[in-house]
């Protein structure tokens, strides 16, 4: 990508065009794991947004100092450092949530999306575009998690962000592992349908990426 792409386009690209979860089908594990509630989805998304932005910024700043031969390990360690930061912050201020999804927070370090943005974008671009790219991708991820969280929490617990809306639990299966996979598949299929119907896309979202 060249530098003359406007920052707004870059941001939009991260949120819609190349949405990490639904479009690129990267980093699926947490997308299914922590979205049994909107709040968990939001916190996870915020953590990823932070790590993503900071990694992009750091890689971009250091891009002229990192030897190309050791670039991948360097990126991994930069990511690991920022994940440690968010891990410590979360365990200090969000005890209850951390107990539930601490493992997934730590595993942000193994996200393909972060490494791939560092490699494909931040290592070749200046500070500002890298920052915007990180924020755009992070927000795209956050929105995807919250979308899944809204579906699953509303159907599974009848509540949103912990506030009870429906009496009882309409469809308990939605918050169980099964529901996570179903929700993911259905939302993906639905987005593909929209893409084919209204935007003339091929609708093959999420090909064989890993």
């Amino acid at each position: 990508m060249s530098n003359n792409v406007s920052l707004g386009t870059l941001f939009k690209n991260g949120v819609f065009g190349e949405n990490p979860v639904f479009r690129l089908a990267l980093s699926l594990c947490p997308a299914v794991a922590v979205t049994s509630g909107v709040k968990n989805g939001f916190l996870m998304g915020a953590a990823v947004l932070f790590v993503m932005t900071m990694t992009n910024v750091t890689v971009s700043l250091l891009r002229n100092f990192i030897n190309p031969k050791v670039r991948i390990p360097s990126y991994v360690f930069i990511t690991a450092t920022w994940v440690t930061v968010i891990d410590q912050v979360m365990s200090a201020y969000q005890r209850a949530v951390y107990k539930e999804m601490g493992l997934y927070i730590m595993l942000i370090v193994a996200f393909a999306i972060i490494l791939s943005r560092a490699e494909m974008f931040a290592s070749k671009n200046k500070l500002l575009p890298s920052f915007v790219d990180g924020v755009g991708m992070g927000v795209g991820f956050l929105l995807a998690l919250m979308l899944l969280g809204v579906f699953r929490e509303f159907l599974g617990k009848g509540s949103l962000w912990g506030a009870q809306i429906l009496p009882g639990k309409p469809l308990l299966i939605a918050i169980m592992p099964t529901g996570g996979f179903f929700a993911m598949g259905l939302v993906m299929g639905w987005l593909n349908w929209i893409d084919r119907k209204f935007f003339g896309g091929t609708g093959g979202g999420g090909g064989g990426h890993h």
Partner: protein
Amino acid sequence: MWQHVLTIFIASALINNFVFTRYLGLCIFFGVTKRMETAIGMSFTFTAVMLVEAVLNWVIYTYVMVPYHLGFLKIVIFIGTVAAFVQAADTIMKKVAPALYYKLGIYLALIVTNCIILAVPLLNADENYSLFESMALAVGSGLGFSLALIIMASIREKLELADVPKSFQGLPISFVLTGLIALAFLGFSGMITL
């Protein structure tokens, strides 16, 4: 003690199956299950690497990180050992067993940034498992993951012939399928309580 080790082994293979209840390793799970052959190759590589990693990281965690209060560095250190080990295994295999390298080498490269390889030492550290318990968790998780890969690969080979709605082709239908298998695996919960 051996009973506890066995419990951990069975629990990590079936009840807390990495794919179906812990939702880990999904990228690989969906990536390599298009063909049976790759699924089997991946299963072998993963189980072996997981076992070695578990032992290696257990030693580092117990004898270096705990005595010097470096627990907070576990993410950085564990991913460092994974990366170093995979690189070493890659180089050694290329020299010693080229035939095996051409079969499994591509999977090795994918392993570095994989969450389940990293999850095993992290879980061991969180639970303060002993060496044998760590190994049981690693082997159990590895076999559980292999089971998941092989089930999925067999179904997807059949799926090639099915008439799937256009919007659902590819990943979406695979997700729904995984959901159904997860539902079956739900039956194992309650078999053992840890």
